């Protein structure tokens, strides 16, 4: 499959197994017989990309269509990138080994802002111009999608087409349009993009003109033509029981990050944590039935041989039939030596019974996310869990033999005071106390409490989207304050690099004027910003300076409530007025009930979808 060059190169790079393809269950088609060749690119390593559920789903959806052959592409690690440049080996797809210029559509899954430079590095390795406007007529159409595109503006001009929302249906519609226009001879790059703009959930950045006010804030987005929508409405899959789900998974030869069956239980979230973007952009909540899930799990087990099934969704314990589901699964999983794991448990739903079901194999650690140190601040962010819930849950965990408790918090939340910071340390101390409250024989060995603190990034489409991010110095001060407050050596304190959170905030909240800075980094050969060893803060700052960008404009300035926001061009269903209401309630310290208790009229119901809560 590969030529001599590649095989000689493989002997001299780390982890060559990343590049070989040929995995069991990977899809090989006859390229002469398909109408559309689709390259699905993941701008990170093979191990991470192979673990991504979205990619797994869309690979399956696209390949189920007989006219489409979807192949996978991952970012080469830096040693491989050097070799590729040295021997002029272009970026290629794993299945066929063909270089990307042989493809019709080349899509990137943008999972986190820190993958932007890697995305551009991949475009360069493929030999494509990074700016959409510079691409020739015969260049493949470059598509962006994934959670980052709810504000894709900083990278919008690198893409020909952006898919807003869930891709299962839209990507096929795009493929069909492409094929049809190629066949009837009406295809030109611009005619195709114009026609694609009429598909719901498709955003063509080049079809909008952006104007700015004198003070630098956004003035407006203007469609260039009347038939181009003024706002792009997010697409969702209406019925999760009817939605396609892979029956097989591509089986990696090398170990990947989530090397197991991942069963998506539902989409969306009934909670409304005010800092959480996923909780807003994936609304409305749509569940799968127990029956569907059991069928999918068994089928995947038969076709993969994995010994672990991970049940995932934003907050697994909110699934309305969780006990039924776990019981049905346990009917065969135990006998087949398959374990269940539930990675996203809420503090208030943790029970002894649940732990027994899922931990028969796994011992050791458990993670909870109180997010804030005091009840006042937890109310502000609408986390809706209290200290008693946490103490009860860790008590159960300790009694159940878990000796490692990890607690997730955030620094720099709106209205946060030093008292809230000290509250984190107090909470951790109480968790330690909970351990020692147990009679000695009942305590599991080797107590370890880890307090892991990230820095708040005010994300688009959250009630906190207008908020300021703490300045870099303030974040550092708060980190130091907490460090000095934690004196118990049984409590481990881990915190995120504030520099990363700062850059992340700029990219998450930015507009099109950031693009030249990202291109500047790519021109310097920068990639893998998501990896500590490659993140280069100074280079980002240099890029901002060179491009005349004040990063504080997007972070510590905050956005005015009446300001046009870069992401206003996207309609996620949830309305701006709902977000505004939630913001006001945050400042009043008032909580909002979950969708299961009471519909708060967020607006996501207008997207449709089968669900039991939306009014």
């Amino acid at each position: 499959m590969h030529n001599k060059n590649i095989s000689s190169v493989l002997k001299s790079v780390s982890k060559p197994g990343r590049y070989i393809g040929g995995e069991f269950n990977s899809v090989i088609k006859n390229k002469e017989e398909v109408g559309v060749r689709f390259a699905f690119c993941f701008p990170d390593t093979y191990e991470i990309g192979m673990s991504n559920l979205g990619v797994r789903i869309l690979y399956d959806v696209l390949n189920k269509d007989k006219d489409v052959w979807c192949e996978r592409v991952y970012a080469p690690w830096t040693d491989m990138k050097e070799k590729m440049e040295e021997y002029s080996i272009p970026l290629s797809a794993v299945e066929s080994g063909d270089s990307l210029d042989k493809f019709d559509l080349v899509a990137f899954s943008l999972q986190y802002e820190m993958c932007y430079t890697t995305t551009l590095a991949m475009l360069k390795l493929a030999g494509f111009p990074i700016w959409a406007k510079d691409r020739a007529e015969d260049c493949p159409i470059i598509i962006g999608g994934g959670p980052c595109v709810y504000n894709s503006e900083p990278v919008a001009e690198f893409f020909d087409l952006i898919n807003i929302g869930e891709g299962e249906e839209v990507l096929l519609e795009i493929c069909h349009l492409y094929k049809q226009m190629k066949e009837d001879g009406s295809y030109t790059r611009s005619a195709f993009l114009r026609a694609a703009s009429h598909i719901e959930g498709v955003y063509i950045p080049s079809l909008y003109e952006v104007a700015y006010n004198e003070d630098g804030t956004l003035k407006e987005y203007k469609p260039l033509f009347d038939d181009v929508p003024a706002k792009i409405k997010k697409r969702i899959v209406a019925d999760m029981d009817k939605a396609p789900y892979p029956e097989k998974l591509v089986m990696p030869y090398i170990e990947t990050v989530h090397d197991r069956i991942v069963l998506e239980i539902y989409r969306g979230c009934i909670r409304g944590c005010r800092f959480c973007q996923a909780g807003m952009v994936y609304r409305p909540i749509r569940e799968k039935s127990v029956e569907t899930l059991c069928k999918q799990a068994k089928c995947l087990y038969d076709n993969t041989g994995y010994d672990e099934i991970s049940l995932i969704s934003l907050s697994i314990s909110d699934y309305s039939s969780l006990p039924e589901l776990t019981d049905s699964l346990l009917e065969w999983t135990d006998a087949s030596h398959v374990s269940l794991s539930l990675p996203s448990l809420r503090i208030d739903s943790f029970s002894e019974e649940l732990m027994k079901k899922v931990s028969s194999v796994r011992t050791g650690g458990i993670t909870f996310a109180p997010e804030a140190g005091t009840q006042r601040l937890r109310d502000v962010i609408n986390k809706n869990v209290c200290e008693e819930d946490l103490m009860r849950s860790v008590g159960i965990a300790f009694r159940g033999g878990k000796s490692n408790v990890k607690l997730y918090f955030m620094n720099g939340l709106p209205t946060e005071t030093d008292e809230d910071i000290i509250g984190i340390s107090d909470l951790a101390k109480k968790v330690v106390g909970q351990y020692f409250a147990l009679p000695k024989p009942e305590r599991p060995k080797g107590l370890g409490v880890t307090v892991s603190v990230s820095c708040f990034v005010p994300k688009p489409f959250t009630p906190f989207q207008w908020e300021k991010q703490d300045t870099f110095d303030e974040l550092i001060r708060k980190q130091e304050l907490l460090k000095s407050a934690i004196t118990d050596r049984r409590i481990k304190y881990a915190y995120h690099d504030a520099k990363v959170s700062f850059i992340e905030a700029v990219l998450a909240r930015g507009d099109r004027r950031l693009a030249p800075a990202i291109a500047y980094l790519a021109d310097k050969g920068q990639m893998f910003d998501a990896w500590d060893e490659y993140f280069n803060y100074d280079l980002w700052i240099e890029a901002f300076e060179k491009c005349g960008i004040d990063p504080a404009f997007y972070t510590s300035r905050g956005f005015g409530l009446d300001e046009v926001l870069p992401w206003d061009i996207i309609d996620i269903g949830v309305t701006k007025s709902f977000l505004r209401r939630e913001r006001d309630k945050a400042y009043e310290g008032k909580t909002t009930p979950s969708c299961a208790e009471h519909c708060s009229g967020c607006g996501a119901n207008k997207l449709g979808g089968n669900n039991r809560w939306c009014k």
Partner: protein
Amino acid sequence: MVQVNTSKLFLRFRFKKQGSLQYISHLDLVRTMHKVIVRAKLPLWYTEGFNPKPKMIFAAPLSIGTESECEFMDIRMNEYIDPAEAMARINANMTSEMQIYEAYYPESKFTDLKWMSYRITVSSLGDPDQLAQRCNSLFASDTIEVPKKNSEQTVNIRPLIKSACATRAGKNIVIDTILSADPSAFLNPEYVIKALRDKCGMLTSPDLTAEHYEILRLNAYFGDMTEFR
């Protein structure tokens, strides 16, 4: 049904691991096989305890970058299964670069495996006849000192080489060699490559397109040089 002693019923598979699968490490091979045999729905025996696992034993782990026509793995079964049936089911669950071509209930142990043969193909700069000659005079000497892995010390690998012969094949040099596979004195063929580099001046160019080599494991033998099975 055939009567077999089921107290420890191991089924042996002989398989090839070729092409791009030479880049899969032994650890990853084990992980992969685990899932393969589960998919194949074999009557596997599982270990006791909290984390039951099937029992798989491999002979002479292969290092990354070596292809093989002769790999062995023993898998413990819970009950008798026809070897041909087991082989067919496993093969249906693997890709073409890794296929079993022999399955049987063994009488030997992996510790009885003493020698393995390899074919090393080198594309090198220079006159292939001359280089082949240089290799053969190296193999004719009594000692071949090669630096140990991650160490300043050297080791004499000559006693672990049963035979080695270099010939010219077009522009390449082909070395057929039999190396010790005794678990206590296993010689990795990469050491032979090291010797070619240090003593014969081959494979020293930094340009990967100019010089490269391939290693293929061919067969396995008992101490008396009869074929291992």
